[in-house]
């Protein structure tokens, strides 16, 4: 395969709080190639949004990117080297803040956020905001930019775009606002769009419309996407490759079909099992035990062992790194679970442990007491 468009290597982002260091993103690596949609899935608190903010260097104090490397089209968005005093310092070839602002954000990498109401300014017209964005980023005159803005609105399916151009965000429905943001993201024809749960707040019917539109536009403009979501159904529908995150780490990576049909990691499996299905009646759901632990104090060894149905002694001690488990010649399918022989840590001989999440202060239903 050719060079990846975006390459993230061992990225670490931490938040330094009064209670301690929160390791929100703890050494994740993934690539995005030209023209593909890469999924980033996980529950709330898995570190998905922090990961995407890090790619754009939008992490604010008390958060900080503390390690790793991000390369985009051969340029270094983030990279560290060891300084004279032994402390890490930014490398010389790392893009400056000004370059990031003027060249990368919006122009080369655009981002679409979850809540369309908060991303649009309520006191300016929708058209005006879109026009301004195009004017600044593409060096067009006001009139040309306005024409372009109306074209973009039509492209994303806003009815009667000439008259809606002068309306305010509150006059648009949720789905239409999200369309406007997609128009804004596409307006500068970036190479990469990061979509951070863009359809989560929408109804299924509208979500369907938006996903269909994104697929069409993606083919037309050949844009790459990083699609952040917690919804496995959305992943199944539009992603080409998927990274599953748990507590700041990527625990499984595969092509979408392999992820659903040859699931390797117990967490991914549990996530799939816990979903109610629309196409059949399921009598008892099989939820994941317990809740995700705090990233401030993650469990030792495998981070999922406290909720894992297959946990053994060794899981508590060994921290698994992702390894490729696919057969020779097959596309990469990596997982971080010592259950597989490739890890050679003696999982088979190890003693099963009681999953901690089943007792005490947990969300599992306790079977005690009867009657009213």
């Amino acid at each position, binding site marked *: 395969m050719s060079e990846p468009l975006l390459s993230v290597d061992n990225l670490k982002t931490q938040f330094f709080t009064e209670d301690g260091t929160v390791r929100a993103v703890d050494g994740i690596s993934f690539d995005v190639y030209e023209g593909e949609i890469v999924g980033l899935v996980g*529950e*709330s608190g898995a570190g998905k949004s922090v990961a995407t903010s890090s790619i754009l260097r939008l992490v604010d104090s008390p958060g900080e990117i503390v390690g790793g490397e991000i390369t985009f089209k051969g340029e270094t968005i983030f990279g560290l080297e060891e300084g004279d005093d032994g402390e890490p310092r930014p490398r010389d070839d790392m893009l400056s803040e000004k370059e990031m602002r003027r060249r990368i954000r919006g122009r080369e990498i655009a981002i679409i956020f979850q809540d369309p109401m908060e991303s649009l300014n309520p006191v300016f017209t929708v058209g005006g905001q879109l026009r301004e964005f195009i004017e600044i980023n593409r060096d067009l005159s006001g009139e040309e930019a306005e024409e372009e803005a109306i074209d973009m609105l*039509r492209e994303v399916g806003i*009815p*009667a*775009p*000439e008259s809606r151009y002068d309306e305010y965000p509150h006059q648009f*429905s*949720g*789905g*239409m606002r999200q369309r406007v943001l997609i128009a804004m993201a596409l307006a500068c024809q970036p190479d990469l769009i990061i979509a951070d749960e863009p359809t989560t707040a929408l*109804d*299924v*019917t*509208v*979500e*369907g*419309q938006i*996903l*269909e539109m994104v697929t069409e536009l993606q083919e037309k403009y050949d844009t790459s996407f990083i699609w952040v979501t*917690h*919804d*496995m*159904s*959305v*992943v*199944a*529908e539009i992603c080409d490759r998927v990274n599953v995150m748990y507590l700041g780490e990527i625990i499984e990576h595969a092509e*979408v*079909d392999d*992820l*659903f*049909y040859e699931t390797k990691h117990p967490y991914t499996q*549990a*996530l*799939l099992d*816990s*979903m*109610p*299905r*629309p*196409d059949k*009646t*399921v009598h*008892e*759901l*099989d*939820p*994941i035990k317990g*809740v995700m632990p705090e990233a401030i104090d993650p469990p030792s060894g495998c981070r999922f062992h406290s909720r894992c149905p297959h946990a053994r002694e060794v899981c508590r001690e060994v921290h698994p790194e992702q390894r490729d488990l696919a057969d020779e010649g097959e596309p990469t399918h990596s997982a971080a679970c010592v259950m597989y022989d490739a890890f050679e840590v003696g999982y088979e001989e190890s003693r099963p442990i009681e999953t901690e999440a089943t007792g*005490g*202060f*947990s*969300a*599992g*239903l*306790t079977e*005690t*007491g009867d009657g*009213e």
Partner: protein
Amino acid sequence: MSGRDRERGEVDEGESLLEVRNLCKYFDNDGGLFGGMTLDREFPFVSRNPSTVRAVEDVSFDIKKGETLGLVGESGCGKSTLARTVLRLLDPTSGSVDFKGEDLATISGEPLRRKRQDMQMIFQDPQSSLDPRMKVGPIVEEPMRAHGMLDEEGREARAKELLEKVGLDPQHYNRYPHAFSGGQRQRVNLARALSVNPDFIVCDEPVSALDVSIQAQVLNTMQDLQDEFDLTYLFIAHDLSVIRHISDRVAVMYLGQMVELADKEELFENPQHPYTQALLDAIPVPDPRSGGRTNLLTGDVPSPIDPPSGCRFRTRCPVLIQPDEFDMSDGEWSAVVEFQRAVKRREFETTNRREVRQQYFEEAPTGDAGTLIDDALSHISDEEWAEAEALLTESFADASVCATDEPAYEVSPNLGDGRHYAACHRVRDAAVASGAAADLDAPGSGPVEELGADD
């Protein structure tokens, strides 16, 4: 639980616990000094146009004791307003709500307050429905205190017992809500609702704000509690997967009206209303080989201030019925409908007659319809969009039976023996009852006799 100082009309399993009849809830904007006022740039600068949002209109249904009725619909279709009106948190504009044989719409004050002991509600946002300055124990005890149940010690004991029942640790009686995760907070809400031992709980999107894995835990707990305490749920959600998992019967709402109501299996396997079909088609399936969604609806939900006449879904309906005066083939008719909607939405830019014709009419209708289309195309090439729109809407969309008559039919179910209500004119031939009889208020309605052949 014997120290109860009120009488309870007991309802047997399978009997109607709640009967809602022709319930309407309107909101108007002409209250207050500046109500309904709009500002203008031209004389007279200020105008008053009072309007009414018809949030819930003419809704009838029953809920039997011990069952879960699922209520689905897109945002803004009036689900929550309906739930609140049923509980008398909002005053209904008209209609009746019989709860255990007493009409909630007519009582007020102390009798209503006492009634509330039997009806509780769980809200969507577990964060904002718990007072952050109260500890969890007192939160759970509060409804009991309001209804004078038990003494101080008894309440504490019951609160602890309930916390355990919903899957929390009774030792967390003294914690504040912020110490709990979203799923756990929703469990506190459950415990609070259960504390007064209600018969009926309205759950307004109780799991929408939770992660999937947590969602499953809470849903399972809710089912266990239903069995244990013999609860009746009205379960509102926009997620059809969740509805399919938890409901016994399902009602589908669109723009303030109920469009279909049937047993769960029947509704999911044999949906009759095109809106229900569209909703079902729109659900994403967690399976990359499923081929994605098909037949997506276009357009947005119309405004409930001025809803479409007849069937409210007709402006987006993919299978609008052809008016009797035309005799077009299905292909021609759907091209006409698509064209009319495209003109209304100003979907295309070109005013070139030939290009437009090519884009929308592979099979051009002939006869009267053909003439009308020609006229509309002339208007468009003269850039008279409004005229073209008016002509098309008047002669095609508004002439359909869907626009002139309000549908209400009952069909015989394929699965199970529950009643199947569908508000769509397309089922009129297969219907066993129509109009008022199909409303679920037919007094003493027994099993419906099979008339008319099934399709």
